[in-house]
């Protein structure tokens, strides 16, 4: 929303400048560890950048591989990221490390904000999306509030009273918002050293161009959206956008997809308004509209209580939901209340144990997929196909077809090209999906397979810098950014509109959320926190965060012998000074308990985590799938996580990281789990001949 381009996620391969010999000087990896989350892609790319001399700052509670290689590591207390970001912003402003000219010309920070409404008054409202509204600035020459037509502005800073109303520039609003967050204050909140914070800020701010990449860590607490805003603000203030070496870019695309690498369109705009309005949690957390998602905890409540309406059927296409959702034990209770559960996946997981119907999908090596990466298009091709599995893309349309055949009007219309308009009508084969997209570039699947990797554009043409400076044909002005004001909206006024109406994500007007969303980032102390002196922190004195190891991807791959033998059970990292009090040694099995449940893991005493903090890898155990635990109750961090309020205001995030636990030495491993390399032999692949094709596409 602030930028109008893709976020610079390394794990999603969006930080494209990393893959080339570019002008990057410094990177901040904030709660992201590409060496763990994507060693083969981003991990290697960041490594190449480091080898070239690019400086890195890593902000992460555990001493990850990337932390080990960083110039500066800030082992932050879990869940306090926004406090540290606000300190970065404050320091950058106070020491004038920001790119003043860029901020003045290309962000909305000079625009005046009415301090009472928090909105930016308009001198003129434009109905043409190519032309933004006209905002007010403070004109230094006449010392008055003046409308200033896009694109140039005047005063960046100031508080002004006009006709009894107080106006401040967006810049002043931001500055005041972060005013309390000195490095010393952040050090106190985040359990860091103030000098080290300053060194990190300086290293990044004085070495532009570069970029700050966040991972999922900051997305997993109720302060999630503010962390994304804070991260973006830091980069934008430094002018790290669309210049060579910046991670935020709008490079060209092949034009094949509507959404990058999302071959199957969402077409939510075809849903009836009343259906969009009753999406669970969708009115309170309107940011969810960007993914057309529901709010997990609201769904959980609806199943458990029947309010605001009961839910009956759960069709799931994902790995192990019980290993992925917060407070999994409550979800089990909810699942018992449903009439029908369908699980669509490549192999059985704990979730399958509760399903009435399994729909086996093809494995990675059995599927075809179109992939756009940098300036190439690739065909990921099926190399084999075994047993009764079907490509999931096709399963969805088969379900729709079956409903249509039984008289469901909406499903029938999904196959009607006229009704679907610019969207792809539902298909009967994977081929139809490919044709729909590839014909846009005059290709078909066979041609793409033949030419893979197909360079659809020379790299120099594809890597388009300074896109905001391109002239708009119609207005003759610089086209700016994809935001309503065409500026980088660091003062994110549209948060207020989003909370009140659902715009720009919802096609229909939604009732306002109970509270306005904030246009600037704010810090939220974790609800369960070691600095709160309350019952929870007394009983559960340690703060837990989780994270990745390179051998697994999310909750997959725990059934691969060569990976499981390297990491058969989750490690529980504890600082030796913390462990002392519990009589725990490296290699001991320990109970990890939260208010919500208990699990076990293997203790590792290490200086690689700060005192008072516990780090643990999430896990599930496919080997106990057919026992009464169904493999999700032994070592699954999500037995401990928190699914109740407070939620993030904008998108409703619950607490997957940064909550309170206690430790106790356990007598041994959970029953039936596999730990020795030889245990995993039954999962070694067994050669098979051709199997019968049961579904002909």
């Amino acid at each position: 929303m602030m930028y109008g381009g893709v976020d610079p996620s390394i794990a999603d391969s969006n930080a494209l400048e990393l893959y080339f010999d570019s002008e990057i000087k410094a990177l901040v990896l904030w709660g992201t560890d590409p060496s763990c989350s994507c060693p083969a892609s981003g991990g290697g790319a960041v490594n190449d950048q480091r080898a070239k001399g690019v400086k890195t700052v890593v902000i992460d509670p555990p001493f990850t591989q990337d932390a080990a290689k960083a110039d500066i590591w800030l082992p932050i207390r879990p869940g306090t990221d926004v406090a540290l970001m606000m300190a970065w912003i404050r320091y950058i402003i106070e020491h004038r490390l920001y790119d003043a000219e860029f901020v003045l010309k290309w962000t909305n920070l000079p625009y005046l904000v009415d301090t009472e409404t928090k909105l930016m008054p308009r001198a003129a409202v434009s109905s043409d999306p190519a032309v933004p509204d006209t905002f007010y600035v403070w004109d230094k020459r006449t010392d008055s509030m003046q409308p200033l037509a896009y694109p140039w502005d005047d005063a960046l800073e100031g508080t002004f009273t006009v006709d009894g109303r107080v106006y401040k520039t967006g810049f002043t609003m931001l500055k005041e918002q972060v005013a309390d967050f000195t490095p010393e204050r952040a050090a106190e909140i985040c359990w860091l050293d103030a000098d080290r914070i300053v060194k990190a800020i300086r290293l990044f701010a004085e070495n532009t161009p570069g970029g700050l990449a966040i991972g999922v860590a900051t997305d997993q607490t109720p302060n999630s959206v503010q962390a994304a805003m804070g991260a973006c603000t830091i980069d934008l203030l430094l002018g790290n956008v669309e210049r060579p070496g910046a991670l935020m870019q709008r490079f060209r695309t092949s034009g094949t997809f509507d959404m990058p690498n999302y071959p199957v369109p969402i077409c939510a705009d075809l849903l009836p308004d009343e259906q969009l309005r009753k999406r669970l949690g969708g009115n309170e957390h309107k940011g969810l509209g960007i993914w057309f998602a529901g709010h997990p905890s609201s769904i959980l409540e609806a199943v458990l209580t029947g309010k605001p309406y009961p839910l009956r059927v759960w069709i799931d296409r994902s790995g192990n939901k019980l290993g992925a959702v917060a407070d999994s034990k409550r979800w089990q209770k909810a699942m018992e209340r449903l009439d029908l559960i369908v699980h669509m996946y490549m192999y059985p997981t704990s979730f399958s144990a509760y399903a009435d119907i399994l729909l086996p999908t093809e494995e990675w090596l059995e599927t075809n997929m179109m992939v756009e990466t940098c300036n190439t298009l690739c065909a990921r091709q099926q190399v084999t196909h075994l047993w009764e599995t079907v490509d999931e893309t096709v399963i969805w349309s088969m379900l729709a077809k079956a409903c249509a055949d039984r008289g469901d009007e909406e499903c029938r219309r999904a196959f009607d090209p006229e009704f679907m308009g610019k969207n792809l009508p539902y298909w009967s084969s994977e081929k139809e999906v490919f044709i729909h997209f590839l014909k846009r570039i005059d290709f078909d699947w066979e041609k793409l397979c033949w030419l893979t990797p197909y360079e659809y554009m020379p790299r120099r043409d594809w890597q388009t810098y300074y896109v905001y400076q391109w002239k708009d044909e119609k207005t003759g002005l610089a086209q700016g950014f994809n935001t309503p004001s065409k500026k980088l909206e660091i003062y994110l006024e549209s948060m207020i509109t989003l909370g009140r109406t659902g715009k720009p994500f919802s096609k229909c007007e939604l009732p306002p959320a109970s509270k306005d969303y904030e246009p600037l980032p704010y810090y939220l102390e974790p609800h369960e926190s070691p600095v709160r002196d309350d019952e929870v922190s007394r009983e559960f004195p340690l703060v837990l965060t989780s994270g990745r190891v390179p051998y697994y991807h999310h909750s997959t791959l725990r059934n691969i012998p060569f990976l499981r033998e390297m990491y058969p059970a989750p490690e529980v990292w504890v600082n030796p000074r913390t462990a002392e009090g519990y009589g725990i040694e490296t290699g001991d099995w320990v109970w990890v308990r939260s208010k919500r449940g208990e699990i076990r893991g293997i203790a590792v005493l290490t200086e690689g985590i700060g005192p008072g903090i516990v780090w643990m890898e999430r896990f599930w155990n496919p080997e106990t799938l057919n026992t009464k635990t169904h493999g999700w109750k032994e070592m699954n961090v999500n037995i401990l996580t928190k699914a109740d309020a407070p939620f993030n205001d904008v998108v409703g995030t619950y607490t997957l990281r940064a909550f309170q636990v206690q430790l106790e030495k356990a007598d041994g491993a959970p029953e039936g789990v596999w730990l020795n390399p030889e245990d995993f032999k039954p999962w070694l692949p067994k050669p098979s001949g051709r199997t019968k094709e049961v579904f002909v596409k």
Partner: protein
Amino acid sequence: MSRYIFVIDADRCIGCKGCQVACKAENGIGPGENRNRVFDVGPTGVFPDLEMYFLPVMCQQCEEPACVAACPTKACRRNEADAVVMIDAETCIACRACERACPYGALTLNRERRVMDKCTICEQLRREGEKPACVKNCPGNALYCGDIDDPDSAVSQLLAQTRPEHIHKLRDTGSHPGNYYILRNAAWQDLLPRELAERRGGRRQV
């Protein structure tokens, strides 16, 4: 004659252990068996002032291999042509004398074939003009192998470009290891793989 060895840029190793898995898949090595292993060296220091690097260890292609000396059947020997230490599956009786003798834990019992197994620098791939599996699959570009007697080889070039104080070898216990390690960004810790496995200060050391 040529002398094939590894030069390992430890600064570039990100500790992902992809090389371990790639080696197993390429060479048919079972669970619990390893031709190569990656160790965390560290963290050393006291929180939050720490250092850590990653150490891939495979056969060090020793000049005077302890494994060869220990082998009662001469199954374990050094190739004439490229000086790579090999085990002849026909004559190996799996007595594990070589395993006990090797200071670097570089030998593994292949239970399926009942022979001792070790890194051959992927002989079968080199014969086809390909790179070893671990080298090909290393996302960090940390692994280099080649003929150290050829001054134009990639490994010789890499060493020539590296400051001498950044070049290390595993501790020599008499067999004169051939592989080189490059480490610029951390202090080299003189620890043998078995000592590292005991320390286990960080992740599990397999």
